[in-house]
């Protein structure tokens, strides 16, 4: 594929226009505006325009800036395959499992670590589903376990072993101080240590998760904001069917 370099677009191709905003811990003055301008210039931007600068508190000023970046990115070189590619309906998926796997698929999901944000994983698992798309519990050919929130990775791994889980779904919504990456990594390593990694389709999800990040963490797939249950189901069964074939 030939390179396809793109730059941010304001109103003309390749103008490189970007909007920025930030707070500086300085008292506002015209010099503070100038400091903001020089700071953005130092970041490598040109045509820096500080369009707003004002005091927001004693010792703090807020800025809005427009500027042009010289950087471009070759979009043809981006490797970020989506996990959401196998579009299938619930009925199709059930039929697919019946035919290609020939038994119920066992799926377990949990919000791991100290994270208590279950709404996202519930949206994937609960009957009701998400945005009109039914959750995995509703699939005839799935046996679904929702372990809830704040599930320790050890407990999840033990459960996986005991119940011979086929697909494991881990959720992380809190991302502060990298807790999501830490917990996901811990889970993958523990599965590996227990010799279970190859036996499960391992999936992570959450609003900041990307499929790329998931594969870097050793997961089979990652699902981000707006994921629909059927997208996850389709991925799981396709991946399982491939293993069956091998």
């Amino acid at each position: 594929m030939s390179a396809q370099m793109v730059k941010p677009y304001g109103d003309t191709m390749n103008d490189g226009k970007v909007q920025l905003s930030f707070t500086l811990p300085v008292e506002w003055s015209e010099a503070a505006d100038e400091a903001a301008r020089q700071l953005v210039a130092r970041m490598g931007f040109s045509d820096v325009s500080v369009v707003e600068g004002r005091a927001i508190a004693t010792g703090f000023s807020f800025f809005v800036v427009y500027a042009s970046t010289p950087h471009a990115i070759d979009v043809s070189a981006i490797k970020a395959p989506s996990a959401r590619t196998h579009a299938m309906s619930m009925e199709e998926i059930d039929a697919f499992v019946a035919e290609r796997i020939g038994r119920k698929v066992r799926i377990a999901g949990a919000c791991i670590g100290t994270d208590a944000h279950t709404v996202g994983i519930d949206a994937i698992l609960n009957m009701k589903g998400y945005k009109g798309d039914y959750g995995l519990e509703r699939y005839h050919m799935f046996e679904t376990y929702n372990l809830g929130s704040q599930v320790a990775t050890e407990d999840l791994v033990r459960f996986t072993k005991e119940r011979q889980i086929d697909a494991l779904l881990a959720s992380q919504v809190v991302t502060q101080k990298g807790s999501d990456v830490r917990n996901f990594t811990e889970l993958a390593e523990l599965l590996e240590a227990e010799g279970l990694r190859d036996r499960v389709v391992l999936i992570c999800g959450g609003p900041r998760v990307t499929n790329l990040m998931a594969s870097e963490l050793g997961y089979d797939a990652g699902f981000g904001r707006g994921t629909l249950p059927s997208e996850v189901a389709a991925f799981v069964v396709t991946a399982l069917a491939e293993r069956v074939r091998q």
Partner: protein
Amino acid sequence: MEIQIDRARVERARELAARIAAPVEAFIAAHSTVSVERAVLRLLGVDGVGADEVPVPNLLVDALDPECRTRGAALAFGRALAETGLDPAALGAAIADGAHRLADFADVPEAAARGALRPHVDAAMARIGERRAQRRSLLERLPQLPPPLLYVIVASGNIYEDRTAAIAAAEAGAQIIAVIRSTGQSLLDFVPYGPTTEGFGGTYATQANFRIMRAALDEVGERLGRYVMLTNYASGLCMPEIAAMAALERLDMLLNDSMYGILFRDINMKRTFIDQHFSRMLNGYSGIIINTGEDNYLTTADAVEQAPAVLASQFINEEFAERAGMPATQIGLGDAYEINPDLEDGFLFQVAQAQLTRQIFPNAPLKYMPPTKHMTGDIFKGHLIDALFNLTSVMTKQHIHLCGMLTEAIHTPFLGDRALAIENARYIMGTARHFGDEIAIKPGGIIERRAQHVLAECVALLERVADIGLMQAIERKTFADVSRPPDGGRGFDGVFARHPEYYNPFEAALRGAREVPA
């Protein structure tokens, strides 16, 4: 939602507007302008440019001797048509390159001239009629979403970038696209020619640019299943010509105000009054909705104080438009959301003004302009001011809704800004869709008192104008705090008195078609 207003005051305002417009109309009837004449030639089929990029219609009108000009360009041109047997386009070109001179045909009898014009007049009327019918059937097949109709501007200077921007905006939900003109085009006494790619703060209004944009919007309209309207500017020295071009290229709206050019562009008032009349006769027939420019009173002075002037201008614009034969449904009177955001209860004043306008002009497709003056580099706050503007618009059932841009104080809109602006309008207008229907305004409260005050002050203002006459009033700084002398300003040299035998074939045709009061 309804405000109690004194209907007698509204009646009085309309009476006064009629008294104000009548003498001006008498003046209009006795005069013409170079731009009216050029518009007549364009309608007949004259187009193209000669040496130095001067448009052929300009070459022709400029070539008329003063006496001959007073009879109208049509007669002179008709004589040449009769004699040469050429079609108008070819004849124009021939005159432009010196192969013929209009003066050479002075002896051709007037009846022959009229006869030679007839088929071309009929053809032009038919073509405009077709455009209008086409719009109507497109709108039936590809209905728009219910109003407020989201309207955004494109202004890159390059018609091809504008096209990209317009398509993107339509996809995002825009229902009307306006191509902003390059700075100062309104002061040019000619219309540039061909597709253009270098404008300043906007893109030149040319017939070719109209065509490019119309084609793009028709295409995206088919794809989206809803007709996307196209707007440009007919203010300035070439108002009639742009109205003619817009009619031919099926634009749907035109900025067109009876006083804007006088007050805000220092264009001669006589020139403006005559030009607006003929352009509005054309707009009426071509089904184009005009957008008046009352928002300008609010951006240049305090919006709370200027409210009565805005209303007065709306009455005057309405009156002039009706006298040119326009139905109320094509008179897009302007208003704007320009009150200082930091004024306590400013929102209530905005609601009062918007609802007042809605009630006084129930059939007008009101054009509601967004906050501009008080927008700053704080794009976050700007987005909020736009949100309350959007809310006011949907509550008071405005018709043409210009989407405010969070970057208004910074640059002409980026593609992304337009997407955010449309998102803003769609969110607010969806979540509060029927809010206006669900509430009543407290009798005697802040909102109602404000509306009544504005109406009362407007009547007082119109009384003063009616007493001294509109031209005098404008000279005496009655509007927008500027004084313009009747014979000053740009374009006065293009105004001339009609000879008793003056002939403009389209005037009669348009009157016939629309039964314009004499």
